[in-house]
């Protein structure tokens, strides 16, 4: 379908009105009905595609065609609904029936029982674990009740591969408004008043950053979108780009107008092929409509965006390293000042913003700074998207107003601990952050509160841990990560982290000396104070915060040579419980190290000197006769 170029803001508003019907069924707007009677939305995010959501789409289409419904019911792929745990998700509109864990073979039932028969397919509705009741609508599910979607507003609503649906959802109107009604200074004022702070980690006020870039002298300037999302276990930015790519482009154009830049670059991880593909489509379609390119909406403003792929280096998420990487160099950070706003990409003023930060901007412009600043707390405005993962029931993407407590996120929305275990800790800020414990559960989530505890807001990864997680092991895991990812430019980070890691290894192996904790603390502080960039300056945080809150666990490793969580391999031994073993030989037959001896119907014995601690015997014993000591 060829789309005609949009030449003015008025034309854009007309186009918006004319396209609004596309979302009529989904938004339940009377008088806007499209030719279809129903829309079936299937999650097309990375997670659900990995669980065959493409086959679901194909089977739904086939079943509809077989029943002569192809012209009445439309099937489309949207961005992530957030409820990844129960994916793939299928949503039937306008009745808003929400199906979970759909398999390709369920397509027939959905078409025949629901679309034709008018009865939702009961067995595919979400089963509320406590009441054991099926809940048909997402709005009634605990997972969605406390959420508020601003950055994710279009994820799961529109087809991200059609700019027309974005326009129907008020897309590009913010840019139109800014280009026709606002001066550059007024845009800065609006951003300052909204209180929006960067969602990429540091929480720097976006308005101040734009102001600096606006004031910087230079004929050429750049807008860079940081889509490197390096924190492993975090997928907020990916979901936004997959589900609502145009909103990122629109916000970059707004930023371009404000600071006086004509070029935008999105630096995106190569590991996100789907997001790349959706962004490419969005750029092409937006250009076709004249929303990117020369003389946008007849305003005389030119702006275009291109993608630049990352190549798997975490440190490139740091803005100065990122700019070096775009220049085709090794991604090594440089000292600030000069800040990118003064001297950035190719030494010209550059404004670097995170994906989620940008996604918040169009609604702020359309609804006003007062609306945005009324959400959240005094110093942390708006919402924050978190990627909930780890030992939690509802793994997924959640967006909550700032000031929501950890308890609400983990227990009300997240559904509590997986497998009925006990909550032990939650890590935010990824490898730069720290952990929080039970005593912090009622802390409202704000930039300041998390920092005071020794963690940080970070980009939004939230990893929940239960009593089976060893905190020393987790600290070691994060440190291994930063160690691998350190660029090596400065000594405290390159060598210091190596020493920290070695110390942690001696602890998990039961070989540490008694003053190991003090050594960790001293060294950690030195690394924090003397490293060049944010990576080194924050790398000891996971160690220091686990020491702060789980010192006894460190001591158990060091003094008693015990890992209370039973994780550290070198500190655990598998033993046969004599009065439970019936001598079935299952363990001995499966032991890869062939170190279990015993005759049929006799008690078996594990040779500790040969055991490689693989745990196979324990999984094979049907009588619970193998335990870890």
């Amino acid at each position, binding site marked *: 379908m060829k789309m005609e170029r949009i030449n003015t803001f008025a034309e854009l508003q007309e186009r918006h009105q004319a396209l609004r019907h596309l979302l009529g069924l989904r938004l339940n707007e009377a008088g806007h009905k499209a030719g279809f009677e129903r829309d079936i939305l299937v999650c097309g995010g990375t997670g659900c595609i990995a669980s065959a959501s493409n086959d679901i789409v194909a089977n739904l289409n086939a079943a509809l065609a077989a029943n002569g419904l192809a012209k009445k019911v439309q099937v489309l792929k949207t961005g992530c609904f957030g409820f990844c745990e129960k994916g793939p998700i299928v949503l039937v509109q306008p009745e808003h029936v929400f199906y979970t864990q759909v398999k390709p073979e369920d397509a027939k039932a959905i078409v025949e029982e629901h679309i034709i028969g008018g009865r939702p397919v009961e067995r595919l509705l979400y089963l509320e674990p406590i009441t054991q009741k099926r809940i048909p609508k997402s709005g009634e599910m605990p997972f969605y009740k406390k959420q508020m979607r601003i950055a994710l507003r279009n994820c799961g609503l529109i087809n991200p591969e059609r700019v027309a649906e974005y326009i129907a959802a008020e897309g590009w109107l913010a840019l139109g408004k800014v280009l026709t009604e606002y001066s550059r200074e007024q845009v800065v004022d609006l951003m300052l008043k909204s209180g929006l702070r960067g969602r990429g980690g540091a929480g720097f006020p976006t308005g101040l950053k734009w102001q600096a870039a606006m004031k910087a002298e230079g004929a050429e300037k750049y807008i860079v979108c940081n889509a490197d999302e390096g924190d*492993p276990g975090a997928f907020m930015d990916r979901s936004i780009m997959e589900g609502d790519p145009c909103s990122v482009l629109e916000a970059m154009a707004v930023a371009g107008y404000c600071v006086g830049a004509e070029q935008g670059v999105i630096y995106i991880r190569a590991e996100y092929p789907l997001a790349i593909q959706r962004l490419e489509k969005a750029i092409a379609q937006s250009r076709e409509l004249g929303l990117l390119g020369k003389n946008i909406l007849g305003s005389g403003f030119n702006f275009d965006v291109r993608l630049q792929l990352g190549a798997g280096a975490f440190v490139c998420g740091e803005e100065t390293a990122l700019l070096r990487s775009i220049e*085709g160099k090794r991604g090594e950070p440089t000292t600030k000042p000069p800040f990118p706003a003064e001297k950035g990409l190719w030494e010209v003023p550059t404004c670097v913003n995170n994906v989620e930060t940008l996604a918040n901007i169009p609604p702020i412009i359309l609804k006003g700074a007062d609306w945005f600043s009324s959400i959240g707390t005094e110093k942390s405005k708006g919402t924050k998207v978190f990627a909930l993962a780890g030992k939690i029931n509802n793994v997924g993407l959640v967006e909550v107003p700032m000031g929501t407590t950890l308890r609400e996120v983990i227990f009300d929305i997240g559904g509590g601990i997986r497998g009925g275990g006990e909550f032990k800790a939650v890590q935010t800020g990824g490898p730069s952050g720290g952990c929080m414990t039970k005593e912090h559960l009622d802390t409202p989530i704000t930039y300041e509160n998390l920092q005071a505890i020794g963690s940080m807001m970070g980009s939004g990864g939230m990893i929940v841990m239960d009593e089976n*997680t060893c905190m020393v092991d987790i600290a070691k895991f994060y440190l291994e990560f930063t160690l691998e990812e350190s660029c090596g430019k400065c000594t405290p980070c390159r060598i210091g982290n190596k020493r920290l890691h070695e110390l942690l290894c001696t602890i998990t192996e039961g070989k540490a000396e008694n003053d190991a904790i003090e050594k960790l603390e001293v060294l950690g502080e030195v690394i924090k104070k003397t490293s060049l960039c944010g990576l080194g300056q924050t790398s000891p945080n996971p160690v220091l915060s686990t020491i702060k809150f789980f010192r006894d666990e460190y001591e158990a490793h060091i003094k008693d040579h015990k890992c209370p969580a039973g994780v550290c391999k070198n500190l655990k031994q598998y033993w046969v419980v004599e009065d439970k073993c019936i001598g079935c030989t299952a363990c001995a037959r499966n032991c890869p190290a062939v170190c279990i001896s015993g005759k049929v119907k006799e008690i078996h014995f594990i040779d500790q000197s040969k055991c490689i601690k693989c745990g196979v015997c324990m999984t094979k014993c049907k009588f619970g006769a193998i335990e870890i000591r």
Partner: protein
Amino acid sequence: MEAAKETCCQNGLAKEMFEQLEHFIVSVNFDPCSPRRKGDLISILHKAQHIFGYLPKELQIWIAKRLNIQHSEVSGVVSFYNYFTTTPKGKYNVAVCLGTACFVQGADKVLAEFERQLGIKGGEVTEDMKFSIDVVRCIGACGLAPVLTVNEKVYGKVAHTDVAKILEEYKD
């Protein structure tokens, strides 16, 4: 440039592959005289790795000459970024995610089991070039943790006891 192409071909890199890469370099309007020409280096390396499967030294030299930059600059970039590899991958590349979400769900055990059964470590390839193991950090399917991929196929909620079954699928 022609000479470089010749030597590479002698080393077993196919001519058509170079032509494909050349085609890409032309398509991005690469300008060998621009002071900002290095800005295209990383996307060209991505393309090259996509075409050749890996970035051996002779290919890096060819790229350096073609882009009018030092070989050391190319190799410096290749060695810096994890995504770029100078060794070929196996026919089936097992990429185990060790992102945090996967790690806390026991992905390290899954990795150890692959390493044990294949007799190679992460980053290595079996002698018959059939399997290689890669460690990756978050492929964004954390809801399915622990996650791994074999070439393009994604496996979710994998336990270390599933490893033999997965390898069985690629027995050929």
